[in-house]
């Protein structure tokens, strides 16, 4: 376990208040839209009203008559510069501005630049675009039909099929499923939803024609990777590009991709030699930037009559929209979806995924999860409940029977992953105790007698986070390590810079706590900087719960390098040999003589004033950490719902969340992360959907239709924790930000289905709206 430091040092495990909150709650944050530069002008995107149409002409004459109009950039202009298309993160390409045709509603068609923001918007209204409508493909199940329109004329393959990917043993799994004796099957759609961060995407691109330097303030979760992509795609020398991610108002995966608006702002700044600001509207964010999920899944489980699971087979159709812009750096087209065996010891498993194009916005981003893990966790947790109904077994008993045994870790799963550590019964048992599970089941039986609808939903999920080992994860070939550079000043204070970028996770508080833990320097004496590519060491950014597993490892390792040098300096100061020194957080002392000690502050001063002969001055280190494996946080969630028979409204009465994320850096921040993730999970389960009508119109492209949870809808969260450290991670931490969003949707849906299970209901697709529930009640004669 982690050695406890004093509250003054504030190392790991202390509920240190978030340093960044002082400026956030006083309105003193500095977001991209707060950047104002002399001579700055504004961009606005003209978007396609059609889901699929041929572009006939663009007339900019009237737009250029608006006072303050400076330029309209079209796809043809970009094509002349070789920039009409850009690569996506997953081996596809994407139009920056449309040429030839448009492939989804709200696609970028032209970019207007004016001296005032509203003038640019007025220009966009006056750009005249002529289209010829083409047949629209909305339903992914029809994408491969013989009469489906072929969307991507730029590809050699004249088909809407993007990829087929499979893992596991198809033949043996099929045999096991066929031989039963008990099988369960569920068809589940994880609907298209959107992270909808409070701050939309945007940038300020500032090309200085004199120095040749391009500075981009960007809403970016991965500033270094974006700098390299701008250099590779735009042909700008990388030393002349500086990407700055200032404060970011929520990302959740939405700010991982590069969007056409960024590229257009850069092109406009290069063309005009002036800073160009482009900030999305809310609707633009919902309609055109990275959506999440849209996985159409089938799971089948075979089991013995006693409930022992034998095999899992998963077949999935993935709707990627018009371009495969899935923001995922694994080598697998469906990311980490093959974690779909979850927390259970399946001897056999097989998983296959086919990706298709449709006339919808591109994306497939990992919304508060590692790549496709939420879909996988939802599917297996739903399927286990369906199996429990088939077996007439309690869903808790079925799970306990099939958990990967605690003594089997590290556990090799049939789909190829090595789970680092876990104690699933411990989390389950704590959750059952907190919930009073037996009592709840009794209450449910009594209520059912009286005709009242109450349900209890269980989800005992396993996550896979921390991308990642460089052999499996990369962005354009750059391995997914991360970095930390620490400099100790002569007075013993410090600055740390990382390759990650907080979007609300509290990095300015937690990373100093890791350094405080390792070096004994009080956490308040350590400043943290991220997001400026001119100063921070190269890193791959923050998403997929990778900051703690990867950059957290780098931070501990860099601190340990400093401690190694500090030991040498301490030995010099104490005139002792290094081997005779002991360490406790904050000081080295001579073994057996604790009063003969040198504090880290004294050592830091000596590093600049009184060094051993031949030693380099200074006390600093940088570490690039490439993890040996991913980490596997887990937990058990229990949801209790009551359903109003008259309206179909579901009320979440209680929600118990027991999480195990290994060693905890800051318990207060972990608690906050869990509250936030559960609230987003609640919204996905009950409220959120981006759909398209048959003409390709986005439904759910504004906050009137795409609902965001408020305090009114959000129940009280009851949290608990167990601690199973990661054996391979330098500080035994696993990452937690995403667990509640990954684990909770199944708990909510399982609870609703449980309340209706006596009516024969086995599955309801999200969002579980009152209307859907009401219809089910009507069909079953309940009122």
């Amino acid at each position, binding site marked *: 376990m982690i050695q406890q430091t004093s509250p003054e040092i504030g190392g790991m495990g202390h509920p240190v208040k978030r340093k960044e909150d002082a400026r956030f709650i006083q309105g003193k944050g500095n977001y991209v839209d707060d950047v104002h530069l002399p001579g700055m002008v504004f961009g606005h995107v003209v978007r396609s*009203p*059609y*889901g699929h149409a041929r572009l006939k002409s663009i007339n900019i004459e009237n737009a250029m008559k608006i006072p303050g109009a400076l330029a309209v950039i079209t796809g043809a202009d970009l094509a002349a510069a070789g920039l009409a298309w850009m690569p996506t993160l997953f081996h596809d390409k994407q139009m920056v501005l449309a040429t030839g045709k448009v492939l989804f*509603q709200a696609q970028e068609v032209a970019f207007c630049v004016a001296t005032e923001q509203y003038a640019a918007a007025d220009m966009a*209204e*006056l*750009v*005249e*675009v*002529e*289209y010829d*409508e083409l047949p629209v493909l909305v339903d992914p199940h029809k994408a491969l039909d013989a009469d489906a329109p072929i969307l991507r004329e730029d590809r050699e393959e004249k088909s809407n099929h993007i990829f087929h990917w499979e893992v596991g043993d198809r033949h043996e799994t099929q045999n096991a499923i066929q031989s039963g004796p008990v099988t369960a099957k569920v068809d589940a759609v994880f609907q298209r939803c959107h992270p909808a961060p409070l701050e939309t995407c945007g940038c300020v691109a500032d090309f200085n024609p004199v120095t040749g330097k391009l500075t981009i303030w960007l809403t970016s979760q991965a500033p270094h990777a974006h700098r390299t992509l701008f250099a590779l795609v735009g042909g700008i020398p990388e030393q002349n590009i500086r990407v700055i991610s200032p404060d970011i108002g929520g990302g959740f995966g939405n700010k991982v991709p590069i969007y056409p608006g960024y590229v257009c702002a850069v092109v406009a700044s290069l063309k005009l030699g002036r800073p160009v600001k482009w900030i999305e509207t809310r*609707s633009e964010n919902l*309609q055109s930037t990275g959506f999440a999920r849209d996985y159409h899944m089938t799971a089948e489980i075979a089991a013995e009559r006693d409930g022992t699971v034998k095999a899992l087979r998963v077949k999935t159709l993935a709707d990627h929209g018009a371009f495969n812009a899935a923001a995922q750096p694994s080598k697998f087209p469906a990311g980490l979806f093959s974690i779909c065996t979850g927390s259970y010891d399946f001897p056999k498993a097989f998983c296959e995924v086919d990706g298709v194009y449709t006339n919808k916005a591109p994306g497939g981003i990992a919304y508060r999860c590692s790549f496709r893990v939420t879909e996988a966790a939802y599917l297996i947790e739903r399927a286990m409940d369906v199996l429990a109904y088939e077996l007439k077994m309690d869903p808790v008993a079925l799970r306990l029977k099939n958990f990967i045994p605690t003594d089997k870790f590290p556990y090799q799963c049939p789909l190829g992953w090595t789970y680092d550590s876990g104690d699933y019964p411990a989390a389950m048992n704590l959750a059952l105790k907190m919930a009073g599970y037996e009592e709840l089941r009794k209450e449910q039986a009594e209520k059912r007698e009286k005709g009242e609808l109450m349900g209890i939903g269980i989800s005992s999920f396993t996550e896979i986070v921390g991308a990642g080992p460089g052999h499996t994860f990369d962005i354009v070939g750059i391995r997914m390590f991360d970095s930390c550079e620490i400099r100790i000043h002569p007075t013993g204070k410090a600055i740390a810079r990382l390759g990650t970028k907080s979007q609300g996770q509290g990095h300015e508080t937690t990373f100093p706590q890791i350094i405080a833990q390792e070096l004994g320097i009080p956490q308040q004496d350590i400043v943290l900087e991220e997001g400026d590519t001119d100063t921070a060491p190269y890193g791959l950014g923050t998403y997929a719960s990778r900051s703690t597993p990867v950059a957290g490892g780098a931070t501990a390792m860099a601190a340990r390098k400093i401690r190694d040098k500090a030991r040498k300096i301490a030995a010099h100061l104490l005139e002792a040999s290094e081997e005779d020194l002991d360490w406790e957080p904050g000081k080295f002392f001579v073994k057996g003589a604790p009063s003969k000690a040198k504090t880290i502050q004294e050592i830091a001063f000596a590093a600049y004033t009184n060094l051993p002969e031949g030693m380099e001055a200074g006390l600093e280190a940088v570490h690039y950490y490439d993890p040996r494996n991913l980490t596997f946080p887990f937990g058990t969630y229990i949801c209790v719902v009551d359903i109003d028979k008259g309206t179909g409204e579901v009320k979440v009465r209680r929600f118990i969340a027991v999480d195990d994320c290994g060693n905890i850096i800051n318990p207060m921040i972990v608690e906050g992360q869990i509250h936030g993730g559960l609230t987003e999970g609640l919204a996905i389960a009950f409220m959120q959907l981006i759909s398209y*009508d*048959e*003409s*390709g*119109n*986005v*439904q759910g*492209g*504004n906050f*009137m*239709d795409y609902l965001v949870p408020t305090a009114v809808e959000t129940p009280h969260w009851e949290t608990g924790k167990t601690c199973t450290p990661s054996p391979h991670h330098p500080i035994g931490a696993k990452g937690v930000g995403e667990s509640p969003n990954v684990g909770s949707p199944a708990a909510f849906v399982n609870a609703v289905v449980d309340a209706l299970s006596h009516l024969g209901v086995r599955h309801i697709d999200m969002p579980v709206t009152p209307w859907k529930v009401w219809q089910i009640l009507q069909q079953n004669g309940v009122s």
Partner: protein
Amino acid sequence: MAVRIEKTFEVSEPIDKVWALLSDPRKVVSCVPGAKLTETVDDRTFKGAISVKVGPSLTEFKGEVKIVRLDEQAHILELDGKGQDVRGKGGASMKMTGTLQSLETGGTHVVAVTEVNVVGILAQFGGRMMSDVSDVIFKQFTERFQQKLKNPEAEPQAAAEPVNAVSVVGSALGHTIRRALGGSNES
């Protein structure tokens, strides 16, 4: 976004008089807020334009209307229309069936069934806004239609001005907001 809107109203004029007005697009167009005919292609095909303003977004559809059925005996009129916004903000197609029935009072019962399919920003407002907008447009249409029946020579005020549509949408928004707040929706 396909929306089916069915509307009925009654007028005191006899069926032949009503039919004469309804079956002549050149006359009836002046009753549609924001609409005008720009060209007569042949007896049954006309080119025209209609403006709808929702918030800051002005959509000016330009397109063609065809009379596909003109049944003098049964008093049934079928129109097909298709148009695109002049600045590429979207498109719409429409199929309208108008049926007249004589009333015992000597007046006429009018049934108009319209199926509209809209692509673009208007469609994103969803069905509730579409039907609210159409309610207000229809209300203005019936008022003007009756006015025109009574006085065939009268030009309904500023028929082709999109300004009318501003008020249309202003009041439609009002209805939506009132409904969202739980108030009554009297129209």
